[in-house]
């Protein structure tokens, strides 16, 4: 007779974005079903947007996410610029390059943040500390060029708000130069470590067919062998003028997702370096006054995948409809297939592998359904995950000795 246990994970920590609640149905060690409940922090931003004028909305959508806080305003201004004729025709070249720089710096800090937390969940606290240590200089660069470590306030319809000073360029280049050995280290630490491989290879697999069915995007899709990237497919910013690669893996497991994100950091560094070398001189703002009647779609490749905004304007100074779809909205739903069939000690890392917010996996409780007695909290589940790694470490040590 199977003994089914319900494991609720979540719901949320108000300081972080994207709270989620995962209810795992467990038989023994195996996850047999999952319920995903979201909406704990739904702020009605689409509705709020209808009451703000076009310039204010860029600030509003910046606050959707604290990690990819340039992706939402970027997608939004692209949607409005789509009504006006497109970024390419409208926005001064210098502004386009600076937008690209901010977009890629953001990808680096987001991927480092994910790498650190993923390391923590599987018991690699050194990876956690070091990933976040190397994220700091990236945030310092943001502070230098935008004035803020997060929520940069750079994007505006028709351009950007702040220029990059010439003196900042050498600091940016130096930071990137110092970042490369750090990414090399993470690459080595993850790709050559037998314990990490044993922990992540073949775990939380999302096959290509499942990825297509769930319409997932970004690194989650690219790790499952789907060759998509908005930066190349529907070019915006300066990406089509630059030389860079799309990182693809085909196994769809957590290891593949990790590899995609680590290697993408190299590409981001390449992109920023080229932007800094090619940075044209000139205006940074097209000084747009009115938004005509029309509808527009803006898409950017956020660190987690395609972020799409739809704007409908009736010629007044406010949008009459603003639809926002963040990448995690598609990716999180795919946990339904990623986590089911796996073990409970892999659940934290599997649910975290699509790079949703971590708040969800911090608040965990294990409840035995029939008697409601046994209760584990979030830390217990992370410990369970870390213990599994430790056991593997011991085994590999014995094997090696």
């Amino acid at each position, binding site marked *: 007779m199977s003994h089914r246990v319900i494991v609720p994970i979540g719901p949320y920590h108000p300081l972080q974005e994207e709270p989620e609640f995962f209810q795992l149905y467990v038989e023994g060690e195996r996850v047999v079903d999952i319920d995903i409940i979201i909406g704990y922090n739904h702020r009605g931003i689409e509705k709020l947007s209808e009451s703000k004028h076009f310039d204010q909305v860029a600030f509003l959508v910046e606050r959707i996410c604290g990690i990819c806080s340039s992706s939402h305003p970027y997608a939004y201004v692209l949607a409005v610029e789509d009504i006006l004729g497109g970024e390419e025709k409208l926005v001064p070249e210098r502004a386009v390059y600076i937008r690209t720089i901010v977009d890629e710096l953001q990808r680096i800090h987001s991927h480092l943040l994910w790498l650190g937390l993923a390391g923590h969940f599987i018991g690699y606290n050194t990876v956690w500390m070091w990933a976040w240590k190397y994220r700091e200089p990236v945030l310092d660069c943001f502070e230098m060029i935008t004035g803020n470590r997060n929520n940069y306030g750079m994007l505006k319809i028709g351009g950007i708000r702040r220029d990059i000073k010439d003196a900042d360029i050498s600091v940016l280049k130096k930071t990137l130069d110092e970042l490369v050995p750090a990414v090399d280290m993470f690459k080595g630490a993850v790709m050559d470590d037998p314990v990490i491989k044993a922990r992540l290879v073949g775990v939380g697999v999302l096959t290509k067919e499942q990825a297509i069915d769930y*319409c997932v995007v970004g690194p989650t899709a690219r790790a499952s062998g789907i060759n998509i990237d908005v930066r190349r497919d529907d070019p915006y910013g300066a990406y089509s003028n630059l030389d860079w690669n799309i990182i693809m893996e085909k196994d769809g497991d957590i290891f593949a997702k990790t590899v995609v994100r680590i290697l993408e950091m190299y590409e981001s560094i390449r992109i920023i370096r080229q932007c800094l070398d090619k940075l044209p001189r000139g205006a940074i703002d097209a000084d747009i006054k009115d938004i005509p009647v029309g509808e527009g779609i803006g*898409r950017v490749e956020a660190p987690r995948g395609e972020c799409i905004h739809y704007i409908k304007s009736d010629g007044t100074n406010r949008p009459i409809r603003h639809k926002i779809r963040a990448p995690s909205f598609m990716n999180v739903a795919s946990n339904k297939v990623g986590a089911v069939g796996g073990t409970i000690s892999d659940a934290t890392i599997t649910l975290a592998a699509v790079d949703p917010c971590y708040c969800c996996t911090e608040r965990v409780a294990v409840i035995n359904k029939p008697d409601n007695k046994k209760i584990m909290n979030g830390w217990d589940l992370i410990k369970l995950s870390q213990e599994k790694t430790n056991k593997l470490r011991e085994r590999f040590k014995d094997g090696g000795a």
Partner: protein
Amino acid sequence: MDMIEKIKEGLGVRIVSWEEHSPRRIYITVKKEDIFEVSRFLFKELGLRFSTASGIDTPLAFEIIYHFSDDASGAVYSLRVMLSDKLHPEVDSLAPIFAGAEWVEREIWEMLGINFKNHPNLKRLLLAEDWPQGDYPLRQGK
């Protein structure tokens, strides 16, 4: 044969109107009876990716725009459906074709009060359980 021709040929008379706002932004209006079959064709036969759907409350009808992305060309094909019965807006669910539609339709259902026929799991996604029944936040006049 490029994607535009394939779509035009595949949809044939089911195209009510075809607007190209720009080379990569194409809006196609279809009848609500046809949306299931048209979406199935775009997703399964032509391999387009479902990006999302936007529900809009307009004075005369509820409008749903299904955004399909052709990642090979970077174009977004937006299928527009008008639901003119404003009292009982209803349309076929696309979730039986692809799982990615499930959450998107749940969101439109709770925010605009549009019913999706044959949806496997039509329940609240974002709104709280104690949010009043029949109160749809994204309807105009709210």
